[in-house]
């Protein structure tokens, strides 16, 4: 099967209070990718996940997973999907191993000690298997949620803010585990507020705001299209106008000619190469400079610009 693993068409959700949490969303998720859904609080990320996983009833639109309609084939489809919700939610008094086995059973799979051990070991929970969940630390509880979702070996995994409230080290650890899942062929859709997370792991990125999907593209393509490099070159002496040799670069003079500003590039390193070239030309023309400051725009800048309704600049 080469088609998308998940297809959303015209998906909309209006809650009872009248909030339009999803507004005609079209989205295809490719088999085996990590897809990061970015957007501010209340953008509709959790609602989108809920609609696919059966927690939210869509108002309009269709959802197909593994080529089948999720409404008419809910039993077979759900067996192959795993969900780690945003909030911690389980029976706090249950033991870790019982809780994970319960999840597997609920999805219709027979008990499997080997799988249980594999999942718990991969999340460093094996030593805690006989401990009551309430006695675990917050980060460990979060990993129990992941273990529950992995207990039935889903092909499509939803992670709703998997690293919220998790320290830096554990976050890196989770990135490694998510990477390992992808290597095993699991398709992963995650939401996050840490854009570095998307930048680090995702193959593709979608930006959602007020229920509308604003942009979906390969992470690298977004960076290339909307990414920018900025440089500030403090000159030794003020300049009244740009030397003609520098005319072909996106440069401007600021601060009464004391600062030369570069704004350009495309997120593929072109900006950095051009800045090096500018510096070489300055030296060749004996123009002195005192300081050079460069900055690459991040996915964060791009998303913030998009959400604020600004374009990421003319490409």
């Amino acid at each position, binding site marked *: 099967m080469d088609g998308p693993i998940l297809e959303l068409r015209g998906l909309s959700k209006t*809650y009872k209070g009248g909030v339009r949490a999803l507004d005609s969303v079209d989205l295809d998720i490719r088999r085996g990718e990590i897809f990061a859904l970015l957007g501010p609080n209340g953008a509709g990320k959790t609602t989108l996940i*809920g609609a696919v*996983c*059966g*927690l*939210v*009833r869509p108002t309009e639109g269709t959802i197909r997973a593994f080529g089948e309609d999720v409404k008419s084939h*809910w*039993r*077979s489809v*759900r*067996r192959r*999907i795993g*969900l780690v*919700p945003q*909030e*911690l*939610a*389980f*029976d*706090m*008094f*249950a033991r870790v191993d*019982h809780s994970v*086995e*319960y*999840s*597997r*059973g*609920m*999805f*219709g*799979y*027979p008990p499997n000690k080997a799988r249980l051990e594999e999942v718990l070991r991969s999340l460093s929970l094996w030593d805690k298997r006989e401990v009551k969940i309430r006695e675990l630390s917050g980060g460990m509880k979060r990993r129990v949620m992941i273990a*529950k979702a992995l207990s039935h070996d889903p092909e499509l995994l939803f992670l709703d803010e998997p690293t919220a409230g998790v320290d830096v080290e554990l976050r890196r650890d989770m990135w490694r585990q998510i990477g390992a899942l992808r290597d095993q062929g699991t398709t992963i859709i995650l939401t996050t507020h840490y854009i570095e997370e998307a930048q680090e792991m995702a193959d593709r990125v979608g930006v959602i705001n007020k229920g509308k999907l604003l942009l979906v593209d390969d992470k690298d393509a977004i960076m290339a299209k909307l990414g920018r490099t900025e440089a500030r070159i403090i000159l030794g002496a003020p300049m009244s106008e740009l030397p003609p040799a520098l005319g072909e670069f996106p440069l401007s003079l600021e601060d009464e000619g004391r600062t030369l500003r570069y704004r350009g590039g495309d997120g593929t390193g072109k900006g950095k190469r051009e800045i090096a070239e500018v510096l070489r030309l300055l030296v060749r023309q004996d123009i002195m400079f005192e300081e050079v400051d460069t900055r690459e725009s991040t996915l964060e800048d791009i998303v913030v610009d998009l959400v604020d309704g600004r374009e990421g600049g003319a490409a």
Partner: protein
Amino acid sequence: MNLRGAIAIFTNELLRFFRTAFGSILSPVLTTSLYLVVFGAAIGSRMDPSQFGGSTYGAFIVPGLIMLTLLSESTSNASFGIYMPRFTGAIYELLSAPVGVFETLVGFVGAAAMKSLIIAGIIMLTAMLFVDYSVAHPFYAAGYIVLVASAFALFGFILGLWADGFEKLQIVPLLILTPLTFLGGTFYSIKMLAEPWRTVAQFNPIFYLISGLRWTFMGGSDVPIGLSLACTVGFVVLCVGVIGFIFRTGWRLRE
């Protein structure tokens, strides 16, 4: 059909019960014992057996006490069983799993009924310590007890879906179920009531349930067994219908 899913829910619920088994069993056993000591032994010894079909008053109230336990245990077990995951958010898993009405009912309602059957069994054994009673139709008695336990577990399940706070969860058993059970003839025969109360009592549905169980124990009762049975089955059908409707609309389950 996801039989494994149903079994997983059922065993998980029973596991939860056994975690707190001591408390869950002790309190109904203690209450029943107190009733049997106070009413059965102390007061009952002064009552005229002719009013109770020739048996002692202690033996007469045993089916009433079993019914009292069955109703309150089935209802509270099932209502807490489904309300807790709604309250903690753990319900997300049930909603995202390949689990439908059938699996949910077998799992939650089945386990709740099973718990109250275990407790009812223990109470029957406890009652033997205090009064001398026998069961006229053991086979019917067992079947009837299972039916009533299931009926009120279904009712409790609906209650657990409807409740949006712990008070509501407790208020229905406290303000409706317990009074109706007491007034429905746990401790007396309706024949002992004067009019108009005798007529009023006949509008109490639980009166028919107690009367039915009493028939299986004593071989005779206030109303024909057929009528009692019809009431119980009708109640089960009504509850199943309501739950089926709830699942189809997603009420209180899906946004």
